[in-house]
Structures are given as C-alpha cells and as structure tokens.
C-alpha cells in the first residue's frame, strides 16, 4: 500500500466509511500494535491501547486533512501519544523500567532501515553529531516513551541534569535539522 492509498483510506474514514476503516485497520494494525507493545511493554495493555488508538482514528480522521505529516507518521503519532499518555498515567512497577531497558535497541533492523529509506538520513545524520549516549537517550525516549524520570534513573544522573542534558541535545538537533 502506498502512502497515497493510506491517505485515501484516512479521508474515507473521516466521512465514516466503515469498509475503508476495516481496510485501514488491516493495513496498519501491525505497525501501531508494534508501537503500543514497545511503549507499554505489556501485551494485554497494548491490546487495549490499540483499540483506543483506532477509536481515535475513527473519530479524528478528519484532522488528518489539516496535518502535514505523512499518513503513516500521522497514525504512528496517534498511537505513540496514546501509549505514552497511558504509561504516564499509570504507576509503573520498577521491573518494567528494567525490562524496557533490556529490550532497548537504538539501531533499527535492516528491514526497518530499508523502509525508512532516504528520509531517515537527516535525523540519523543529526543524531550522529550528538554524543553517543545522548543520541541513544533521544532514540530510547522516542521508541519506548521513557520519561525524564526513567532516563535519569537509567543514566544514573539527577532528574534536572537529565532534563538540561536532553534539552541541549534537542536544540542541537534542531540546529542540525535546519542546516
């Protein structure tokens, strides 16, 4: 399915076309479930979250028309935001942090690299300009939805230090992305 096909499906969903919704679900549930699983690190909760994500897609699809994101990025943003809202809202057992850290894998697999293609080069190039541990913190936060508290714990630094550190990295990234 091309991005254009996904765009058409989202537009049809925005006018409550259920067949389009079913097809959109078939085409994208695996990616969005992958997002929920990685962030929530709990299968039952990820299944619940995925349902809620698609309820949002059904009710808010019209908003895609005013977004400049690619269709799949728009869908992933909904799933990531929702999954992150869920972990911020729950009291997270300490074991989960360790488990999440264990599966941390800053490097995308070869298949993912191929899919991302040229578009990923700029962000990768800019992350490469950061110190290695800071680039890893940005990637880890993005993929796993880690909070400042999680990151501070994992990197063994005070929370405020972590925040200053990551903000500087983000501003460096912004500078690089604008070059």
């Amino acid at each position, binding site marked *: 399915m091309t991005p254009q096909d996904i765009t058409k499906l989202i537009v*049809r969903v*925005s006018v409550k076309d259920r067949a389009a919704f079913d097809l959109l679900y078939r085409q994208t549930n695996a990616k969005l479930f*992958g997002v929920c*699983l990685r962030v929530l690190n709990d299968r039952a909760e990820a299944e619940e979250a995925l349902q809620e994500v698609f309820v949002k897609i059904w009710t808010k699809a019209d908003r895609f028309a005013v977004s400049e994101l690619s269709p799949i990025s728009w869908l*992933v943003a909904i799933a990531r935001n929702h999954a992150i809202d869920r972990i911020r809202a729950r009291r997270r057992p300490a074991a989960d942090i360790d488990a999440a850290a264990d599966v941390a894998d800053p490097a995308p697999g070869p298949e*993912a*690299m191929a899919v991302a293609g040229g578009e990923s080069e700029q962000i990768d190039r800019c992350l490469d300009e950061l110190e290695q541990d800071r680039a890893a913190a940005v990637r880890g936060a993005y993929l796993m939805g880690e909070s400042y508290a999680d990151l501070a714990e994992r990197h063994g630094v005070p929370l405020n230090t972590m925040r200053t550190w990551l*903000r500087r990295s983000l501003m460096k990234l912004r500078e690089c992305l604008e070059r």
Partner: protein
Amino acid sequence: MSAVDENGPEHGGDDAVAAEYVLGVLPAEERAAAARRVETDPAFARLVERWEADLSPLASGYAEVEAPAAVKAALDRRLFSNAGAADVAPASSGLLSSLTFWRGLAIAALAALALVVALPLLNPPASLPEARLVASLAPQDSDVHYMVVYDARTHDVGLSHVTGERTDGRDFELWVIDGQQAPLSLGVIPAGASVHLAVDDALRRHIASGAVFAISLEPAGGSPTGQPTGPVVAAGDLKTI
C-alpha cells in the same frame, strides 16, 4: 530551578517544550498541559508538528506485530455495536442497564426528533413515505448538528440547522458516501435554519438507506478539490422512515 527558568529562551523555549512533548519525556501534568496547548495555540501546534515530522523516521525502529483477531472484534463492538436494533428485542431483566438498549433508544429518539424538527421541510406532505430518508448529522468533535430529510420523489435534501456555526469566511459542504466510494458533494449548505439542496440525476442513485451524509468545513464556496479538504464536523447514516 523553576518551570519558567527551564522553559526560558536560553533553553529553547517553546520549541524545546514541543520537542519534549513529541519525544514523550514530560511528566504527566506537563504533558497534559502541552497537549492542551496543541489544541489552543496554533504556533505551538506547528512546532509540535514539525518535531513530529522530523523525528518520525525513528519510528522505523518499531517492529510490526499483527494484533490478535480478538482486538478487531472488540474494537468493532466498541464502535459499531449500536448497528443492530434487533439486539434490543430479547428483553431481559438486564434490559434497562443494557448499553445496547440505551443506544437503540437514543437512535429511536433521534429518528423521532429528526421527524419533528424536519416536519416543516416535508412539503408537499403527500410524498410517498418509503421515498423518504432521514439522518441526524451528529457533531464530530464540533457542535455542528443538522437534521436531514431526503425526499426521493422531489429529489430534494432538506436540512434543518440544530446547532453550530460556520467559522468566519468558511462554508459547510454536504457529502454523500455510498459504500466504499469516494465522497460526492451535494453542494455548499446555504445559511439558514431550514434550507434545501436540489440533487441532480447523477447523485440520486447514491442516496439510499445505509449511505452516510457528512458535513465538512470548507473554504468559502466549497472544496476546491472536489473532495473534502477540511474537518468533518457532523455525520450520520441515512435511515428509511
């Protein structure tokens, strides 16, 4: 260090908050505050969207995992369980606490309301009952609500404005969606409490029970592309009355 200091320009200001929000690192309260700003502050929303786009290639790091079939089944129940009014039939002691029952009742009430509100639209009153369809175009993330009656004999769509105003300089456009086909425009809805749109020959066959009417917010004069370009503000299924 106060929140003000942290968010000052020397630390990146709004752009840094936007980045932190997209990355997801903010604690719950700050995250909720940023989410509210996205809704109310267009400049901040643009910063968020730019970070979302810039960081989106990182999403290639998410593995694809097909969700179990039960998830889609549960999702369909959640979204569409009010589809079968027949569910109401097997009355039981639990009837009054049944969500399906109340949804069914809500639909019945809406259909009745549609009739009452739309009665002034029904002229001449002698039109064939089976040639009439109604829809309650319920608000979708908006307060826009219209009742619609389609008279197949006179090829007339009557719209009764219930609530919701156009934002300045923009128009409401009415669409019909027939099954899996792309939305077809029925035209810009004239301002007024009770208005009519004529339906041309080509569009008539797409207007039937089960089709969906939707209203989108468009530039003045209607969508420039022939497809909805703005948000859908109201939508509903056509039902025979």
